[in-house]
């Protein structure tokens, strides 16, 4: 199915958010996630099923003012 990750469309066979992050190579990286604009806490990624067309955001700490 097709999902959008950080604004880019891509094909995935991942069923859950956790599987998607593993597939994309985030591994143990310290990131936070949202699906369709709603926060998904790290402990719920395995239970969060993805659907075609979902927009996923993966963010990390960055410099800010």
């Amino acid at each position, binding site marked *: 199915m097709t999902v959008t990750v950080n604004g880019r469309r891509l094909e995935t066979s991942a069923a859950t958010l956790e599987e998607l992050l593993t597939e994309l190579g985030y591994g143990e*990286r310290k990131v*936070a996630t949202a699906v369709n604009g709603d926060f998904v*806490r790290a402990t719920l990624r395995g239970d969060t099923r993805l659907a075609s067309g979902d927009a996923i955001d993966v963010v990390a*700490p960055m410099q800010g003012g």
Partner: protein
Amino acid sequence: MALTLYGETFRSRVLLGSALYPSPDILRRSIAAAGSEVVTVSLRREMAGGKESEVLLSIIREAAVRVLPNTAGCHSVKEAVTTAQMARELFDTPWIKLEVIGEEDTLAPDPFGLVEAARILTRDGFQVLPYMTEDLVVAEALLDAGCQVLMPWGAPIGSGRGLNNPYGLRTLRNHFPDVPLIVDAGIGRPSHAAEAMELGYDAILLNTAVAKAGDPVAMAGAFAKAVEAGRVAFEAQPMEPRDMASPSTPLAGLPFRLTERA
């Protein structure tokens, strides 16, 4: 007297942003030179394999500062709330510098979205530090929403114009004598920071004025001194200005004059 924000006390009254520095090492040395105990950070999309966040986190760890994540760039309540929730998980802190931007040219806060987001986040256990204008009505609404600290702008973010509305800032200070008030944004020079501190503001939050200086580390030190000087001056109760001159040197005993008149 130390600065108290949500029950935590700090000796330094300079809160420093972590963006726009020429290098990570200059950021690290600028934090040290400013003496800052609170440093703002943000969140951005990151593809797998990015290293930038690791460098920032190691600087923060090494400096042993309190992290204040922001919701910079958010234009809606939902964006700001989701960003705050992601920041709380990543940085393990209930603190959030809440920005809901309402206008692109000035980066002025959207007061309606700001108050709504502050209410949602406070209910969810956040400790909100809102980036706002100096508007008294908005200030009252934010306090009512649960904010215990207010952060009015001096001038638009990154403009370096100093205090655009000293009258408004003085009014806000006088109206809320017991609320910690931090001037956030628009500070360009140490004299601007000193002016805000002389008005009785509790602290200064700045970024660009240090990061974009020719020598950020030296400028960070200059801001530390200015903020300290302004605070001491406020506590020492500055004299009021007056319209006419008043000699500082005593006139009694002045030579060359007759001192007794008939």
